[in-house]
């Protein structure tokens, strides 16, 4: 059904990373990541600063392409199709794999336009009003903003802005939503709301979240991947990946144990 050859997913794994290496210019930031992301589950990427977890996340929807010199080697398979194949358009990848950023970044437009713009440029045909309402409801923001849809998205609080960004991502109906430390700029209450929202969204979407907050990973995710920088070549690598409960209670790797028990990091 896709002209650019990206197959839609309906199986067990949403994404498969095979021997992925990420580079910035000549510097290898991440090496040799092999990972299978479970469909309709929340996967958390954790690890200390500089371990490459955000880089891997951005590799998943080719956002690294936007950074001059950014480059990915290896294969990232979405239903068997490598996202980095020559015939794959990064624009379509991003259309299928949405993203929410660390700092809430709504457009300096009305709340309505914030959501409608993505739909419009992606060729949405249908009832735009309903789409906006549905997206906002899915992002648990509808009740708070339904009376001020024509006001600027910048007028909302930080937590609301982040939920607006989530609603904006949902509106384009992606398969996977990537979240890059979505709560790092928020207070605990707003953070909890986002976590509740993620639990709600995961029924329909595959979610990958990068977080510095281990409690958040433990609370909110189904699977956890722990990254660490290899001191020998300063490249990040995947140390351990597994179900969250298992990884937090019974880590297989000594380095993971050090990190989650707070002895390191």
């Amino acid at each position, binding site marked *: 059904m896709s002209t650019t050859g990206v197959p839609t997913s309906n199986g067990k794994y949403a994404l498969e990373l095979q021997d992925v290496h990420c580079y910035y210019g000549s510097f290898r930031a991440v090496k040799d990541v092999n990972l299978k992301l479970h469909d309709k589950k929340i996967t958390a990427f954790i690890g200390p600063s500089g371990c490459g977890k955000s880089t891997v996340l951005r590799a998943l929807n080719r956002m690294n392409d936007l950074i001059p010199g950014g480059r990915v080697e290896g294969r990232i398979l979405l239903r068997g199709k490598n996202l980095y194949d020559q015939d794959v358009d990064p*624009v379509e990848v991003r*259309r299928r794999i949405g993203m929410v950023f660390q700092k809430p*970044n709504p457009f300096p437009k009305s709340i309505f336009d914030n959501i409608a*713009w993505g739909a419009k*440029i992606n060729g949405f045909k249908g009832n735009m009003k309903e789409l906006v309402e549905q997206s906002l409801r899915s992002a648990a923001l509808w009740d708070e903003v339904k009376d001020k849809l024509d006001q600027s998205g910048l007028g909302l609080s930080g937590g609301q802005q982040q939920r607006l960004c989530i609603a904006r*991502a949902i509106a384009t109906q992606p398969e996977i939503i990537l979240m890059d430390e979505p709560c790092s700029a928020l207070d605990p209450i707003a953070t909890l709301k986002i976590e509740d929202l993620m639990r709600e969204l995961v029924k329909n979407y595959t979610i990958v979240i990068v977080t510095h907050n281990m409690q958040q990973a433990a609370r909110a995710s189904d699977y956890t991947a722990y990254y660490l920088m290899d001191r020998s070549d300063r490249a990040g690598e995947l140390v351990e990946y597994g179900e969250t409960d298992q990884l937090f209670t019974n880590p297989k790797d000594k380095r993971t144990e050090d990190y989650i028990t707070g002895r390191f990091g």
Partner: protein
Amino acid sequence: MSQDLQPGNIGSYPEDNDLKKFIDNRKRGGLLWRLSFQLATLIAILALLALLYNIFNGAFGYVALQNKVDPNALVLAMEEDQMLSSPKTVSSEDDNELVKRIENNPNAIGFFGYAYYNDNTDKLKLVSVEGQTPSRETAESGEYPLARPLFIYSAADVMQENRAIGAFIDYYLTNVNTVIEDVGYFPISDELLNGATTSWSEAVGDQAEALQSYAANPADVSDHDIRISGSSTVYPLTRQMAIQFRRAGFQGGLDLQQTGTTAGFRAFCEDMTADITNASRPITRAESEACGDKKRTPVEFRVGTDALAIAVSSKNTFLENVTKDELRQIFTTAETWSDVNPAWPNEPIERFIPGADSGTLDFFAETVFNRKLPELTESELVKILEANISTGLMRRYEAEKPLAERSQAELVDLVLERVVEQKVVGSWKFTESLFNRTKIEEEVARIPQGELQWRSWISPKFLITPQSSTPELAGVRTALFGTLWVIAITILVALPIGVGAAIYLEEYAVMVANPILRRVNAIIQTNINNLAGVPSIIYGILGLAIFVRAIEPITSGTLFGISDPTTANGRTIISASFTLALLILPLIIINAQEAIRAVPNSLRQAGMGLGATRWQTIWSHVLPNAIPGILTGNILAMSRAIGETAPLVVIGASTFITVDPTSPFSKFTVLPIQIYQWVSRPQPEFRNIAAAAIIVLLILLLTLNASAVILRNRYSRRLS
């Protein structure tokens, strides 16, 4: 303070008093900087004020105007002409003739000196004016509107050389009051008479006593002749005095003529065929100047008061009193009596008036009509034009814009320009005008036909008049249009190219992976930065070489077959615009780059993250956010381009052009060029209009900037 935090033996920070002093010292240092910054600001403000003062000072102030022709005389001549050419009008210099024609005609009306009425009270009926009848009282007090002084004129050298003249005038002044009432005029007060006597003794100087003795014994100056000319009004009085003078023993020749005041002055001043001239009005400045040309200084003697009598036949039954307004109609446009007043009979008015050379006619016209040039109607102004300028010139004006279609103000201007030939002969700056008023007035008084006028050199007329070689007639219309054309095209060319280049450099060039291309982009960027600092005249040379010469067929429009007939080369608006566009391109690119760079990266990521293409992201998010900054840069660039002179001089902007530019292929001038050209002219008045043009330029600049700022603010508001 916790001892744990002490750096200990590594070093120490000042404490207690030292700390206080240390902080004070630092503050003092800051204060010094602050004061110097304040001083710098003050200097900048002072410089700005001085600049504005200078411009303002030149643009307003007094001017001395000099008329080649007295506009009042023009009006008078036109009025008299109208009177004389009215239907059923007979004029004669001989007042007895007028009396004779009126006495038996009940529909006749006329005017002449009161003496003629006085001699014919049985045949004529006196008409009161505005309810006043002429009498000694009403004439002296001026209540009777048509009262006027009577004069005789002579000159000091004439009286000294011709002792008979000197003696006769002394005799005249001594004895006039004894005969004047018999003649029919009203005597003047002793005060005025003494004034006249004083003028006489001053004029004759040390000969006064000798002349006085001759006056007592006129036979002694019989070896001289006396020639008298002038007013027919004064004539009976002077004749009476001459008769008495002869009776007193004068044996010399006595030539006494009545020619009218104006002709009398001509005989006295220009032809020198009269030694004394009678006058029923004061000498005009022009006549006085004519005398001066022949080294004759006229001396004026007031000898009596005349009241001009409006007379009808004693057979007239309906006319008792007229107003000035009715007089105006009676002697010009009205055909029947009932035209003027429905109570009067429907009979034709028959007019009998003194001739064109008569002072009485001048006096009547002046007193009854009493209008200034700007008050005349369109047709009257056209009459003045027809009477005073050549038919060829008339045809030219008619071709430019039919006179009938011109407004009254336009016609007044045309009369002032062409007939009066009003010229600015001196101008003063604003402050001089305010504080040196008396000095200026003295200077203007020395100018013949001079007139002081407050003038704002900047005026609506200044905006819509094209260039002229006469400063007071020049305007900035051509330059204003030129500037607007040039700026519009400059911005149209420079803005899209500049913003486009900035988008490429900021959004696309950074993504180029090829190292050679990256190198090229870096070189381009460096070059753009350097180009912003290149002297503008270099751009002029570039423009001359490329736009004016190399691609002349394009810039002159001949390639498109739409070249302006006034120009056959590339020195056109479009060449100027292209040159200025090149000049401001680096400015626009650099500012737009800054603006684009200032758009947070998170917005780009948000856009791309939603599956937008790079261009969609730029168009929808980057550009709208960068527009305020881009517009700011554009304002700066536009201001630079408007004020630019040097490159346009090089590419050959016209310095004198009176034709509005009609297309991008017209030749042109712009405001700065116009100003530059005006300040370099020798006549000081050009400095005044240069100042006015600078104000126009400033206002234009502020208007354009203000609109850009408003646009920018609207964008900023929409985004926040």
